[in-house]
């Protein structure tokens, strides 16, 4: 990144709301100078289903943030979520070329290219290649293996890919505001980066971002994201279950969920009832509290079980010493940490926004957008200068001559 001041927008197009933060990046420091939010329209489970409505509300949030900051955004880091995102692990190994077995840059480049070269099904595109630590003759090397001596160099990549159309839709919503999308960042990586510490990531931690339409998770090991995933179930499903189970409108169900919903059943008295509004007006009704808790707890438990099932054998209590960290808007549901602890069999806690974030921005629902700025910038700084695949103009001309 250049040393001049850049105004970076972090945009999370979520199912319930669109969050925008503007960071002023001087090349060394980042300061959050603007914030904008807007209720989502035209977005279901993180996917754009109505381009016009989604564009309007996203652009409205961007305008709010720019007004708040008093600056124009130069480029955007965009959070990416949705059920279409999948991941796989691929690893490769090479024999070290040099006679003295000293690993050079060529060996590293070869093994990395090999590990990333797995073909994708048609219509799918890579969103992230997350590198796991190198291994030299089976020995773990947390940093670069250059100049180390060994016979065999191994590396693995967790590759996250998604549907081209869905990715393009999200990008075009931002481009409709005439802004460049500088980077796409998985929502789970952004929020996970925000609520976990480097030590926790080193020891192993599972970060779960419970959103309205999706639940994103990232399992960290050895300081890097080991496995990521998205479950297309979120807080709106709890609302929907309440709505169906208690015969309520969605807004009424949402109100009950926020006031009385719990991730673990606590009420023992079956006859305890709660008022819908509590103002005794016409239409105000009573509902059994136990029913509310049972519905929300069942769905939450199920959701956490799905996450555990998606992780499969990768997740073991031993490999997740730092436990589970929960964040996202639905993480505000009472008792969710206890529920997560029971499901995963490890300690669980609610993710805390770092103390250097301003008080008014410390909300579990904002962690993804905040993390976007920090994760996005650190990824930009770590990334080598971009090289065009297939070469530039000169290479194309050379190829022309070669083929003729």
């Amino acid at each position: 990144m250049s040393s001049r001041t850049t105004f970076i927008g972090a945009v999370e197009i979520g199912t319930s709301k669109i969050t925008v933060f503007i960071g002023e990046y001087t090349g060394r420091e980042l300061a959050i100078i603007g914030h904008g939010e807007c209720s989502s329209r035209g977005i279901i489970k993180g996917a754009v289903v109505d381009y016009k409505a989604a564009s309007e509300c996203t652009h409205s949030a961007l305008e709010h943030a720019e007004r708040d900051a008093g600056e124009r955004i130069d480029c955007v880091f965009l959070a990416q979520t949705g059920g279409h995102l999948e991941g796989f692990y691929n690893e490769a190994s090479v024999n070290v070329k040099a006679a003295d077995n000293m690993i050079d840059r060529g060996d590293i480049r070869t093994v990395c290219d090999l590990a990333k070269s797995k073909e994708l099904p048609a219509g799918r595109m890579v969103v992230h290649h997350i590198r796991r630590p190198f291994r030299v003759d089976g020995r773990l090397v947390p940093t670069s293996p250059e100049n180390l001596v060994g016979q065999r160099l191994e590396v693995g990549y967790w590759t996250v890919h998604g549907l081209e159309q869905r990715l393009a839709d999200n990008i075009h919503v931002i481009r409709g505001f005439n802004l460049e999308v500088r980077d796409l960042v998985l929502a789970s990586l952004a929020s996970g980066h925000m609520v976990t510490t480097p030590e926790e990531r080193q020891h192993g931690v599972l970060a779960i971002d419970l959103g309205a339409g999706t639940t994103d998770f990232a399992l960290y090991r050895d300081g890097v994201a080991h496995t990521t995933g998205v479950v297309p179930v979120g807080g709106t499903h709890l609302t929907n279950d309440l709505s169906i189970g208690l015969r309520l409108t969605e807004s009424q169900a949402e109100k009950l969920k926020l006031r009385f919903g719990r991730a673990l059943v606590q009420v023992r008295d079956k006859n305890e009832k709660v008022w819908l509004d509590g103002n005794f007006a016409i239409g105000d009704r009573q509902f059994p509290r136990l029913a509310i808790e049972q519905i929300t707890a069942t769905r939450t438990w199920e959701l956490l079980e799905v996450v555990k099932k998606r992780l499969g054998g990768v997740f073991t209590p031993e490999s997740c010493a730092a436990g589970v960290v929960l964040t996202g808007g639905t993480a505000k549901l009472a008792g969710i940490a206890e529920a997560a602890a029971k499901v995963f069999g490890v300690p669980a806690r609610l993710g805390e926004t770092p103390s250097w974030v301003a008080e008014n921005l410390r909300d579990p629902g904002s962690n993804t957008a905040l993390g976007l700025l920090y994760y996005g910038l650190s990824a930009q700084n770590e990334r080598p200068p971009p090289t065009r695949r297939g070469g530039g103009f000169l290479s194309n001309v050379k190829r022309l001559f070669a083929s003729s």
Partner: protein
Amino acid sequence: MSPSETTAPLARSWRDIPQQVKPRAMSNEGRRRLVFSALKTAGALALLGALGWGGVAVAQILREGPKKVPGQAEAAPIKDIVLVTDGALDRNWIVRTLALPKNATLMGLELYQLRSRLLVSGQVRTASLTRNFPATLTVNLSERLPVARLMAQMGGESPHPLLVARDGVVFDGVGYDSAATDALPWLDGVKLARQVGVILPVAGMETVADLLAKARLEAEHLYRTWQVVSLARLESDGEIEVKTQDVTRIVFGTREDFFPQLARLDLLLDTARAQSAAPLREVNLAIGAHVPVAFDGLTAMAPAAGNAERAARPAKSPPAPISINLQLNTKL
């Protein structure tokens, strides 16, 4: 084998998605931003273009010869000469002195030569000439102020009046009101010398100018009566002699500040006027608190440390020198 031969092509990345969006797919704000950025780009390109064009034009002119740069200005004759001065010289004098040819052009002028022509006149202290394109020559002058005048006769010339500035420079004095120059005292006891046709500055003129300035400022009623200032004994005795309408000879000393001498003179003249009908002939202020004076019709004076009353009274017979001790009376 090179790495590219061993590895399969990388999978397509989200970065391969084209980010171009048609304007119709943009929101109003997006279109506004698009127009703004297009204008910014166009402005930057126009600026670059203008700079490039300017650079090419300058390079071309320089290649053709630096003398052709001001060709247009050189072709146009001077239309006007503007004079900015702090003194009495006027535009006619400038035109006369510069004596520019009729079709002179700005770029054809030798400004240093013209400047030295102006500086020949002692009245001009500094001069600067500026070309103001397309056809105006601006002359900025700073002039000397005359503090005295003298009558000069050099060689076989007929005597003619000249003015003298504070720094001793002697000049003709052009453009002054005659009333102003007539009020200046004449200089006497000055030997003028010429070098390469130019009169050399009068030595010691700064001291005289100090006296005249002090008199003009502090005792204007006295200064008005001063007719001749003699520098004859300035170098040898450190004395300046002044002849006024009322007193034939007033001697000022240069070793003491002129202000107390002027004050003594003023008091003395007032006292003498009040107590004696005889006009004063000579006053010597150069010897300190004791001021020898001489009256017309009286003979030599003798210094006496008496009071002013007695001293100012003219003696009847035999005529005796009179001296006034002003220190007692004026407490200067």
